[in-house]
């Protein structure tokens, strides 16, 4: 198991951000929730030494910024099918709005991740309620 999957370190780093970390047989799961004001960039999820996931709600779009940490090389792409209803208030959409990403971390021990960010707001320009969940696993480089 990669030493980067350190549940105690992830819980400590995310303690002020509502983050909960738990171990998986081959990786780690992180989840968090928070309210973010329009225009503010805020940390949502963090795995020390690997990645920090920031969110920034704007009038013209949602920024989700995966920031590689500790020299990790990061690749990511949006799962287009899961992009729903950004900019609509809870009165204008019945669906929970969400976006999904695929993450890949290259290095001596490659890692792969799936990220889900759900969000909703009760009024335009009001703070956005975010829920984030990411699962990061070891990749068998021989496969």
């Amino acid at each position, binding site marked *: 198991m990669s030493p980067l999957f350190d549940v105690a370190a992830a819980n400590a*780093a995310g303690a002020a951000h509502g983050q909960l970390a738990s171990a998986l047989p081959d990786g780690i799961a992180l989840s968090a929730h928070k309210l973010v*004001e329009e225009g503010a960039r805020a940390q949502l999820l963090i795995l020390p030494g690997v990645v920090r996931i920031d969110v*920034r709600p704007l*009038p013209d*779009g949602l920024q989700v910024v995966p920031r590689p940490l500790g020299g990790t090389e990061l690749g990511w792409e949006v799962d287009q099918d899961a992009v729903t209803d950004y*900019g609509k208030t809870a009165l204008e959409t019945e669906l929970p709005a969400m976006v999904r990403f695929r993450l890949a971390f290259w290095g001596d021990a490659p890692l792969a991740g799936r990220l889900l960010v759900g969000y909703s707001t009760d009024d335009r320009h009001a703070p956005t309620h975010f829920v984030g969940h990411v699962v990061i696993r070891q990749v068998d480089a021989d496969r």
Partner: protein
Amino acid sequence: MRHVALTIREADLDEVLDRLLPIVPQGVHQDTAADGRLELGIYGDAPPRADLEAAAGGSLLASEETEVSDDPDERRLAAIGRRPPIGGRIVVRPEGAPAPEPGLIDVVIGETGGAFGAGTHPTTALCLEALLGLEPGGAFADLGCGTGVLAIVAGKLGWGPLIAIDHEPAALHATDANARRNGVEVDALQGDLSELPPPPAPTLAANVPLKVHMNLAAKLAPETRVVLISGIVDDHVGPVTKAYEAAGLRLVDTAVVRNWAAALLVRA
């Protein structure tokens, strides 16, 4: 409520945020940017100002603490009032935000109804900046108009008549309302630009996704002389430009902000 403004070197943003965001759960506002300087705003009583300044480290150029309204809406409007004009000349603002100084092009965008184009997105700003570099005149079509901001600015700069097309009814309502609010006459039409040909206007602005560009380029009218494209990431500039070049245009300029791209093409 306390507001701490940290002015840092823009080039150091990522490293400063690496230290700042972990200690600021409420997040950091990037309020203004000019001349390589960036102002980061932190609202709320914690953490102590000294900790914020320490997080900014050697990048810190200035620091200021003020008391501001507890109302997030008032704070939002005040922050909009501090934004530098786009291209030094255009201010796009919601109702209630402070009016700019005389001489600037003032565009008031009311409630968008969820339509795109409040003026904060890099693609909108890049298109507006590019418009300032063109010689205005003749018909102008805003394709994928959203709030109608590009058509409205084009009208204020001297283009006309103005056409705006979008497939979203909310965008057409927003464009109609915003055009009236800004004293500009815009003909807002509903249409699916991933299938329809673009109108034969001499100047087109298309802030639309990749697949819409591919359709527009394939069906471009010979009367169209200038096309301003955006709505795409920098990786897609190559294929989109190639499609318009196949229609007889040539690339004149490109600009990229935060991976979002705009390009200007003219008929060869």
